[in-house]
């Protein structure tokens, strides 16, 4: 788990300069670091739903050909 903290510390300048996205990233990594048990079924489906919802976000759309 110390690898996760090292990861955040190594990326500090980027986290700070990316603002909101960086803060969201830190929140996700911290939540992952605090995980103590396997996801229950509802967390599993919520994660997959979020993954599918991400796919339609503009940041995930390829450049137009």
């Amino acid at each position, binding site marked *: 788990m110390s690898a996760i903290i090292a990861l955040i510390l190594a990326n500090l300048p980027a986290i700070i300069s990316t603002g909101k996205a960086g803060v969201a990233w830190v929140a996700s990594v911290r939540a992952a670091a605090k995980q103590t048990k396997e996801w229950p079924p509802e967390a599993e489906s919520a*994660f997959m739903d979020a993954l599918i919802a991400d796919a339609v976000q503009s940041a995930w759309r390829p450049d137009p050909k």
Partner: protein
Amino acid sequence: MKALLLSPLLALSLLLSGCAHLDKGADPIVVRAEQSESVAKATFDTFLQIDNSNRAFFTTNAPPLHAFAEYLRAPVTIPSGGTNLSLPRGLSFVASLDSVKLAYQHGSATSNALATAIAVIEVSVSQAQAFIVQQHK
């Protein structure tokens, strides 16, 4: 100035938060897979938001960064629950790791297969992080 103030505070809060011990009965490799999935999704999101904030700039000034972003965005089709699901490649990496994790939990995949799937996704996560750090230097 803001960054100078925030850096030590953020570092301190992260260090103080420490790392959690697993509950009894939790399978460490499953928890590790789920942590990798969460970190991968968040890292890819952050990386792609940076590239998306000015695609024209990155295409011209950081072609490898933009090329990697496009690599993560390229649609691929993966099997999911008996059907095929089209997802951007980066998200398909996460979904595939989740599938291997579920297969491991149901006894149809080995821990080696799950460890390999974790290692594979961590390569792409490391690459995205390297680009995030690089573009802020």
